[in-house]
């Protein structure tokens, strides 16, 4: 192997020797307990002597992030429709293909579908992933979670015995406005983050507020996309006044707080001049 070989080239060579382990599946490290080396690293720039010992770990079958998201998000979109249009096997034959007398049920369907269509569009056109793949077994777990919850909450919202919110139109209208604001916010953040990588690089940079007012949340929070996402789901809960939606919102909040804290501490570790006012997900609090 040439001294100026990149890890990427080494992975390709390894793959030729062992066709089973394609590059995305290889974890190459200098130390068995250490971090996996990135594709761009050059052999002679690493702390090695005239001979280098590299450790290989099989990461298992991998699947591309884009593929994963497309599958994860298309599921809930169509599963919701099964309940909205009241397929015969859902609420029984008597209720098949009937529609709800409550306008909020139609509104909820539009919002839910809008949310997932937006996510699909972002996956295809906006997101730039630093890692190309994730382990295949994750997709089963993730899909069970997203699809399962979508079915559970769709079941109650579209149920013939659904009860509309207690405060009527006021509650629904307020929730819709909050929903749209949060969706716009979330989209703005995704675009802003994507612009950080417009040059195709895969390194991390500190995101800053732009002219777009929705991005001003960056003054206070490291991961405003998660903040807005939680806001979206809270709005949806208020709109539908449905406990399963509330539970889903709570779980999303917990999961996203974990991710936000992770991201936040990674930023703090990597950048000495990281803005000190910022909290991971909720301004001043969390």
């Amino acid at each position, binding site marked *: 192997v040439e001294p100026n070989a990149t890890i990427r080239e080494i992975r390709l060579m390894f793959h030729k020797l062992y066709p089973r382990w394609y590059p995305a599946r290889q*974890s190459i*490290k200098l130390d068995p*307990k250490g*971090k*996996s080396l990135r594709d761009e690293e050059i052999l002679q720039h690493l702390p090695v002597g005239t001979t280098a010992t590299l450790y290989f*770990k099989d*990461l*298992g079958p*991998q699947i591309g*992030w884009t593929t994963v998201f497309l599958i994860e998000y298309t599921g809930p979109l169509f599963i919701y429709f099964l309940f909205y249009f009241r397929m015969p096997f859902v609420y029984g034959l008597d209720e098949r293909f009937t529609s709800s007398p409550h306008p909020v049920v139609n509104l909820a369907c539009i919002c839910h579908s809008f949310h997932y269509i937006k996510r699909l569009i972002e996956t295809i056109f*906006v*997101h*730039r*992933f*630093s*890692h190309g*793949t*994730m*382990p295949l077994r*994750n997709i089963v777990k*993730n899909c069970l979670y997203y699809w399962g919850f979508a079915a559970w909450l769709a079941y*109650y*919202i579209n*149920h013939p*015995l*659904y*009860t509309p919110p*207690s405060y009527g139109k006021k509650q629904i209208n307020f929730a819709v406005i909050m929903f749209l604001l949060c969706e716009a916010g979330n989209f703005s953040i*995704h675009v802003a*983050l*994507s612009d*950080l*990588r417009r040059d195709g690089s895969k390194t*991390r940079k500190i995101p800053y507020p732009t002219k777009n007012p929705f991005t001003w949340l960056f003054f206070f929070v490291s*991961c405003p996309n998660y903040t807005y996402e939680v806001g979206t789901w809270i709005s949806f809960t208020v709109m*539908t*006044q*449905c*406990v*399963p939606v509330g539970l889903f919102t709570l779980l999303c909040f917990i999961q996203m707080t*974990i*991710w936000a804290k*992770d*991201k936040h501490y*990674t930023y703090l570790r990597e950048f000495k001049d990281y803005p000190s006012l910022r909290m991971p997900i909720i301004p001043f609090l969390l």
Partner: protein
Amino acid sequence: RNMAGAGGSRADNGYGSQQQQPRRRKGPGALATAYLVIYNVVMTAGWLVIAVGLVRAYLAKGSYHSLYYSIEKPLKFFQTGALLEGSLLIPKYLPGIVPSSVVLTAFQVMSRVFLTWAVTHSVKEVQTEDCVLLFVVAWTITEIIRYSFYTFSLLNHLPYLIKWARYTLFIVLYPMGVSGELLTIYAALPFVRQSGLYSISLPNKYNFSFDYYTFLILVMISYIPIFPQLYFHMLHQRRKVLSHTEEHKKSE
């Protein structure tokens, strides 16, 4: 946008790019040891009280039926007290002393508390059933041995008998306890169905429904994948711990 950075936490060990937290296996300090010893002594004593209560009630009544009532209060107290153990002590100290899995023990405590309160206490009609005695006896013996095991381990003076008992008696006690638990849940089912216990149905303004009857059936089904795992884990531990002692003895 570093989505994978966020998702990296989702796909936990698919990358190997997370920094490893150094595992610190230092034992507890003197004050903590004293506190733990007291806790474990108290729990051992508590379960001994339950054991004695059972024996006395049996001798007084002349039969083993409906012994639950004679030990109902201490059972609830000490079984629920184990939650304290789960939330405070196990994560901080015990992994350093005892090579048992934190998650599995926590799970066990949760399921025991569920059975004590959400089934036996809540469904009065099952309290006279014999299956209740089956799991109460299993739990009592297991806990007496377990807590004395912890006590002696903390004092660095563990008699081989206790260690042997802990890693051997479960072979009988585990299935015994599980049988008692499953039979009790099964016995509770018709009464739950009849009374609609802990269940809520549509329509209601929170648009939520919960059927406790179905939930209990799901709990029973969950024993099928979970119990064998716990059982084989203990068997595996047994081989590890008891053979290690053999080697120790040989080398002396």
